[in-house]
């Protein structure tokens, strides 16, 4: 069969599942997906944050004044869950300092600033691992890690870690997340249209690394060109057990847990990772980046970014060097057109507002969205909740958002956790449909941040209590021993003074027996004290070990304990953001 006839071959429709709720939002994709991909020009300065991934912050390994080349490692990973940073062009390191970074908190973060020299000279590329099937798995994973690949869908979790779920979790299904359900964003769409072969190569590599039996590429059906391109590339390849699945357009189908449910009918257990049910999910851009790293030895120094919104003169997708200031990129897309109500990093549903366009594009930046007042109208003051329940109808996790809202407003953290606050993925469906225009997500972030803070306090208090109890025990024991000794001494002196005699001997015997009893008692209690201290130590050691293993901030409550590290860290980030809000 020729590739063309294969294209027209109608395979039996695959069964798809549904998640609860979801919303239909105007997708606004046509705004930016009609233009070709533009190469963003080399900016004068590249600002490279050291924290562009979830996990430990990268450690700079260059000095101010040093000349660097494109593809050179300028910061090394500082732990297992971490990623290196590469220079995205040649030039001189002019500063390693705090700069504003794209983060919901609006805070600054440590960055390496490179003044580019315009030569764009490159370091010698790493050798191709085209024969990866016959190379040790660990070596291939190490390559992916060394090339600084992280999840490009926005979560930025180090890909090398995610592709190594361990022998306890055999992976049956690899899911490629190409849903791109957020309105406005089209960078994955354009990537699939233009680099479908690379995506398929990436699928092949990842499938090999995981030993997955099948691979499902989930694409929302509002991207017919992308679906056709992927299917054509797949037909040209010899890849088996791989399928491009068109899924109905419904926000948030691109949520990892939602997509897994749609494609497999399985649900990821709460506070577990998909590997528990034999699934690994990878973003489609990440998949292409993996192919680039393994086959071409190319580190992650640029990515596709959608610059869109009606306040942008020429909305389009650009190939952008990591570290390019957002302002330069927007200028390249014709600059702003008219009044900008909000500049958003990410999509309109889950993105966050940027206070300034002087922040750099990072590995996780998939979209810059400039909204006009008409696109993001002022919702007006929030009115009272009328308990209409629309929020519960659309919640993709099937939570009861309005109950959580009442309890979050009342600052009743136990109650709000009782309604499974930490299962909330902050997709924004509830706030989107709320007729009272209540900023629900903001309340949940506040409640999460407050819960983390409270849990931290609790743990510290418990620790202090255990230490206090141990100290108390020790002091009492010492006191008892002292008294016993004194009594012994007194008895001995008395015995000497009386010069023997029946009564004195009897008394001495009684005193000695008492002393023995006291000593015994002390001895029986004594092990207790060290044990409780030991317990305390063990307790906190266990906790921090768990924290480290799960990559969560050490202060997160047990409810979110086994939350996948990505989520936990985003939550932490969001929490920080909410904190600043409430303190304002």
């Amino acid at each position, binding site marked *: 069969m020729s590739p063309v006839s294969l294209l027209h071959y109608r395979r039996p429709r695959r069964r798809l599942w549904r998640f609860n709720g979801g919303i239909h939002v105007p997708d606004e994709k046509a705004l930016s997906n009609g233009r070709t991909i533009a190469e963003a020009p080399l900016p004068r300065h590249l600002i490279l944050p050291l924290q562009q991934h979830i996990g430990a912050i990268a450690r700079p390994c260059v000095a101010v004044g040093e000349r660097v080349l494109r593809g050179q490692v300028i910061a090394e990973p500082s732990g297992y869950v971490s990623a290196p940073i590469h220079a995205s062009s040649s030039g001189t390191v002019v500063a390693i300092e705090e700069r504003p970074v794209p983060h919901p908190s609006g805070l600054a973060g440590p960055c390496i600033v490179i003044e580019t020299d315009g030569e764009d000279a490159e370091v010698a590329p790493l050798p191709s691992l085209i024969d990866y099937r016959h190379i040790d798995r660990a070596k291939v994973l190490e390559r992916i890690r060394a090339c600084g690949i992280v999840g490009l869908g926005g979560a930025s979790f180090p890909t090398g870690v995610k592709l190594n779920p361990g022998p306890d979790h055999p992976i049956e299904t690899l899911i490629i997340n190409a849903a791109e359900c957020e309105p406005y964003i089209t960078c994955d769409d354009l990537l699939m249209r233009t680099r479908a072969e690379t995506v398929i190569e990436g699928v092949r590599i990842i499938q090999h690394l995981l030993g997955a039996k099948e691979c499902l590429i989930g694409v929302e059906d509002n991207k017919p060109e992308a679906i056709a391109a992927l299917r054509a590339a797949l037909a040209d390849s010899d890849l088996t057990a791989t399928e491009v699945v068109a899924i109905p357009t419904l926000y948030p189908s691109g949520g990892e847990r939602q997509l897994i449910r749609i494609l497999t009918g399985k649900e990821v257990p709460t*506070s577990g990772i998909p590997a528990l049910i034999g699934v690994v999910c990878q973003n489609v851009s990440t998949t292409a980046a993996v192919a680039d790293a393994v086959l071409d030895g190319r580190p992650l120094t640029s990515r596709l970014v959608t610059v869109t919104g009606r306040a942008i003169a020429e909305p389009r997708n650009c190939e952008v060097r990591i570290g390019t200031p957002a302002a330069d990129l927007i200028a390249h897309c014709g600059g702003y057109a008219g009044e900008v109500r909000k500049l958003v990093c990410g999509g309109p549903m889950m993105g966050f507002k940027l206070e300034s366009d002087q922040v750099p594009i990072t590995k996780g930046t998939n979209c810059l969205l400039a909204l006009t007042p008409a696109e993001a109208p002022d919702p007006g003051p929030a009115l009272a909740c009328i308990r209409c329940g629309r929020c519960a109808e659309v919640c993709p996790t099937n939570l009861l958002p309005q109950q959580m809202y009442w309890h979050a407003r009342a600052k009743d953290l136990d109650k709000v956790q009782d309604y499974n606050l930490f299962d909330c993925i902050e997709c924004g469906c509830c706030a989107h449909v709320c007729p009272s225009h209540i900023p629900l997500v903001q309340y949940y972030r506040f409640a999460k941040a407050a819960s983390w803070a409270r849990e931290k306090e609790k743990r510290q208090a418990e620790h202090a209590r255990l230490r206090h109890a141990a100290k108390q025990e020790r002091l009492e024991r010492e006191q008892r021993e002292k008294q016993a000794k004194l009594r012994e001494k007194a008895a001995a002196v008395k015995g000497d003074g009386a010069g023997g005699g029946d009564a004195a001997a009897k008394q001495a015997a009684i005193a000695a027996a008492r002393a023995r009893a006291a000593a015994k008692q002390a001895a029986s209690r004594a092990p207790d004290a060290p044990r409780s201290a030991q317990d305390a130590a063990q307790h906190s050691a266990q906790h921090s070990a768990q924290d480290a293993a799960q990559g969560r901030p050490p202060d997160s409550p047990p409810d979110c304990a086994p939350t996948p590290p990505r989520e936990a860290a985003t939550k932490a980030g969001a929490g920080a953001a909410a904190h600043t809000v409430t303190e304002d």
Partner: protein
Amino acid sequence: MSALGDPPLIAGPFAHAPTSIGLTMRLVMLALIPGTLVGLWQFGWPAINLFVVTIATAILAEAAALRLARRPVRPYLLDGSALLSGWLLAMTLPPWAPWWIGAVGGLIAIIVAKQVFGGLGQNLFNPAMIARVALLISFPVQMTTFVAPTPLFSADAPDFLGGLAITFGAQTYDAMTSATVLGQVHTDLGTGLTLLDILPSTYQLNQAAIGTVAGSLGETSALLLLLGGLFLISRRVISWHIPVAMLATITLCATAMHLVNPNHFLNPGYHLLSGATILAAFFIATDPVTAPVSARGRLLFGFGCGLLVYVIRTWSSYPEGAAFAVLLMNACTPLIDHYVRPRIYGRDRRGEPLAYGEDNQGTTR
């Protein structure tokens, strides 16, 4: 209220569906218009007067209460919730009742049943139903005096001045009173008659459906109200759960009892089309503030309403029980919301994380 002192919006989403409380309320009113117009036409000027008095009182009471509580008056008045409460209350009053019935009812609904609880979204009980029950218990004569329909501009109908005299004056209209079907049946069964004796003289099903019978404004045109209700479901203003559960329960109870003794128990058609069944099922029990949130909770709520309506109508001393039924179930709403929760993604029904075992399956128990 959340209208004051909210932090500035920094969390997403930055897009919002074109919806608001005002829009929701206006859709409900739109759905009420056909049934209301037919009712007003049937009962003429006195009904129109009472309708206006009730709604005006409700709006004035809302404005006064908001001002007293130092809340922003405009946004809360413009959302239309007070207007709707007054409207629904007027639908449940005998159309020729004196003006003060509407005025007192409007005050009770807004001040006692709504604003005292904290205003929009805070009330435990349906304001219109609280007002109706309070009136029924306090002024039983006025609240149970119904008239046969005399359509506007027909020969028997009072003209505008006559209407004013009936609503605001002391003019009696004993000659025109007529019992509702449920009321008639209730009284006559009490005297030992059987349905076979009572019904032929008092009732035709099709008349109940189009609304040419005695009753409250909203008790008459069942079909138009049904259409309005279906419109609300199609626009997703209300969900289908409560009306369907409530009507199904009434039908089931009535069918079962009718089969047991057709001479003593009305058949389901009467129960569905007469009295306030349709109005209550689509417009009153579905009031989101006082109904459960989850789909299963709403089914339970609708079931309870239906069962209570049937029980009150059949075995209590009141011929109609929709208001009592809804209020009693309103009281159960917090309890239902506490116990009936949906199964969350990744958790089982009891709220525990899904088990995953050797078979690598996320199993839904």
